[in-house]
């Protein structure tokens, strides 16, 4: 719009538009804005008619292998699809779907906080609480952002930080059941818990 107003070519770079509009040679563009979601905190009975500014919508599918001697699971393919509203920064949105899914992969297969009877955390270190590293990536991964305007959100956008998470655990649990007939209903779906049921 600014390009048109200033009579600049459609491919004129953004820095040049600002130079023309504001007469600056260089400098920073700073601005402030706010968006207050319509969320209402629950009342004393835990009820609210507006529990969240948006709901996450998406799905995950997975192909995996289970080692029937050890219970170890290896993901050969993970596909995640999420409704992302209107992506404001599409590249970061993609990274967020992918990152959220890999984080959930950790919660699904390895991560478990262990508390003793006094409520003391017993495994508060990366030595005993394993989060995913490079070698835990699925052999193949596909992430797809489905654009769908969020009418209540700023610029049609919505929060997307964890929209890649929620399909991953059930998809893996179902795939394990499909592969070896073991139905697990508590996370993490550790090699040990699978092996226990395979015996």
């Amino acid at each position: 719009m600014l390009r048109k107003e200033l009579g600049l070519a459609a491919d004129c770079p953004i820095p040049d538009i600002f130079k023309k509009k504001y007469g600056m040679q260089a400098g920073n563009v700073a601005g402030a804005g706010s968006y207050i979601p319509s969320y209402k905190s629950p009342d004393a009975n835990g009820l609210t008619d507006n529990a969240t500014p948006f709901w996450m919508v998406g799905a995950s599918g997975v192909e995996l292998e289970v080692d029937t001697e050890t219970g170890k699971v290896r993901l050969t393919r993970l596909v995640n699809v999420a409704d992302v509203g209107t992506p404001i920064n599409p590249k970061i949105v993609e990274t967020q779907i992918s990152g959220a899914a890999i984080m959930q992969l950790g919660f699904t297969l390895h991560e478990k906080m262990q508390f003793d009877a006094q409520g003391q955390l017993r495994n508060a270190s990366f030595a005993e609480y394993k989060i995913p590293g490079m070698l835990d990536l699925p052999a193949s991964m596909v992430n797809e952002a489905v654009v769908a305007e969020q009418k209540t959100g700023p610029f049609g956008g919505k929060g997307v930080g964890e929209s890649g998470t929620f399909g991953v655990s059930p998809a893996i649990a179902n795939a394990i059941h499909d592969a070896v007939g073991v139905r697990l209903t508590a996370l993490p779906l550790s090699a040990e818990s699978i092996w226990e049921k395979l015996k």
Partner: protein
Amino acid sequence: MRREIQFQLNGREVSAQVAPHESLVEVLRESFGLYGARESCGQGMCGCCTVVVDGRAVSGCLYLATLAEGASVSTIEGNEELDAVQQAFIESGAFQCGFCTPGFILMTRQLLDEQPDPDDEAIKHYLSGNLCRCAAYPEIIEAVKLAARKRRKA
């Protein structure tokens, strides 16, 4: 019980008063205001505190500062202009929060010094000691390959 040590930091001769138990990352932060190396796990398991001592990447949280006496230490702040690896990380969007990024960049430089054209497996194994809670791993692998191409072209 503090004693003075002298070493080279990002190309400059410096000295610092260090206590026997202080780690290199503590001294970098407290005496030199260098915050690029971050202590995360404090156990040498995550790579966030990576610094380079005499040409080798080490965990700054486990490396006693007193051992840096006479050594050449470099950090993510060491170069004035962005190098090929830093450019590649930016172009590939290889992070979300950026907390682990300095460690990944220093390890990637060392990887590319040793293997100028690493494949996915080589990258994964070399960087398996660096953790990223945002799990930007696929983008990091892309960044490493892009950095390798940029370096070969230069």
